[in-house]
């Protein structure tokens, strides 16, 4: 069955893509592409930023279309040199920008709560940040070096099977936080900050969901192929 809606043409203007799907703005920042792209095509911008346009379009498709999961053939046919840098930059973005931003909202809300409730909600968020930090650190210190070694023709003892077995979910806690803010805050703490915060959490949750999808449906098959080839 043809899926004609997917982006496939690198000669398209990037601005058109982003105008119809503004959520791609986040993706651009993960590629290190800033705003002010003018009328330049995807191919031109990718050349400037040293990204393969096929890889760029694959990621854009995953971000844009909720039902799209690339097939094994698509993953095999796409050059993946940009994948690890992309994932590293995404990690830095979540931890350095997005989550601290949510943390600032949370702090304003906590200031309106009775002390013990404030303490509980702060602890919840700190624990979550620790969980995310640990999750990313493991990928950056163990998983990515393993892949980079494979790409360079070497290898180490780590196997992608361990990754599959242990890849945890970072969205559940965010869901819990949305439920708490949305349904159970006492009156008096439910102003604009709470609403802003819910929007921010929903957006970062969507982004993290796509991030996991990229790791599970692109990174994993790609690396399993590399491991197989090495044997």
């Amino acid at each position, binding site marked *: 069955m043809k899926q004609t809606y997917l982006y496939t043409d690198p000669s398209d203007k990037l601005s058109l893509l982003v105008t119809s799907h503004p959520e791609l703005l986040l993706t651009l920042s993960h590629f290190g592409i800033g705003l002010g792209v003018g009328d330049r095509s995807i191919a031109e911008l990718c050349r400037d930023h040293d990204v393969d346009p096929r890889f760029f379009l694959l990621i854009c498709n995953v971000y844009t279309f*909720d039902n799209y*999961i690339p097939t094994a053939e698509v993953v095999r046919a796409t050059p993946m040199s940009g994948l690890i840098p992309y994932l590293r930059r995404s990690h830095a973005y979540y931890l350095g920008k997005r989550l601290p931003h949510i943390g600032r909202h949370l702090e304003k809300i906590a200031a309106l709560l009775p002390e013990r409730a404030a303490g509980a909600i702060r602890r*919840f968020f700190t624990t979550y940040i620790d969980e995310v930090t640990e999750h990313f650190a493991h990928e950056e210190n163990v998983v990515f070096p393993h892949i980079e070694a494979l790409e360079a023709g070497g290898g180490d003892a780590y196997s992608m099977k361990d990754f599959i077995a242990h890849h945890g979910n970072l969205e559940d806690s965010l869901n819990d936080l949305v439920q*708490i803010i949305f349904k159970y805050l006492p009156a008096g703490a439910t102003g604009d900050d709470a609403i802003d915060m819910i929007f921010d959490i929903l957006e970062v949750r969507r982004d993290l969901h796509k991030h996991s999808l990229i790791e599970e449906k692109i990174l994993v098959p790609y690396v399993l192929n590399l491991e197989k080839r090495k044997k």
Partner: protein
Amino acid sequence: MKHKVLIIEPSELIVDGLKTLLAAQPSLRLLEPLAGDDDLDARLAMLRPDVLIINPTVNDNVNRLRGDRGTRVVALVYQYVKQSRLRHFDAVIDIRDSRQAIAQTVIDAANSSNEPDTCASAAGNYELTKRETAVLVEVARGLTNKEIAERLNVSVFTVTSHRKNIVRKTGIKSVAGLTVYALLNNLIDEDAVL
């Protein structure tokens, strides 16, 4: 609300025929058909069809296809398939059936489907019962199911079932999240959190 119907079938000819036939049914909404069962679990989890029409030679693991979504799984048969393989399907469409019979099979399947989510809201009550509140307090204090069972003098199974209801009613899954809930609702003192 329209029922979502997903067709999984490699033959474009068959798919187009079925689409034309079902498109006339106002109570059904056809999802974009799939040709095979690549990444099927993930796709089903996202699409959440009410009715899945699938060629049993593509996949006949009905339990997996049904998942926990209450999806009705209908076999689409146009070559010889052993009767025993069709046993677990909710219904069977034979390609030689009449236009009306095929549409009726799908509509019946759709009407008998039930999403667990809507089932839960039909039950309506989101207040925690006394017993559920008692379990929640112990969960928030950091006790395990076994410890809670001993303390409240009920079976572990009962505790598990209360916990499922707590998660369904509050929408909160993690212990940390439930602790915040308990504190916000003054169910426990902070000192009580282990």
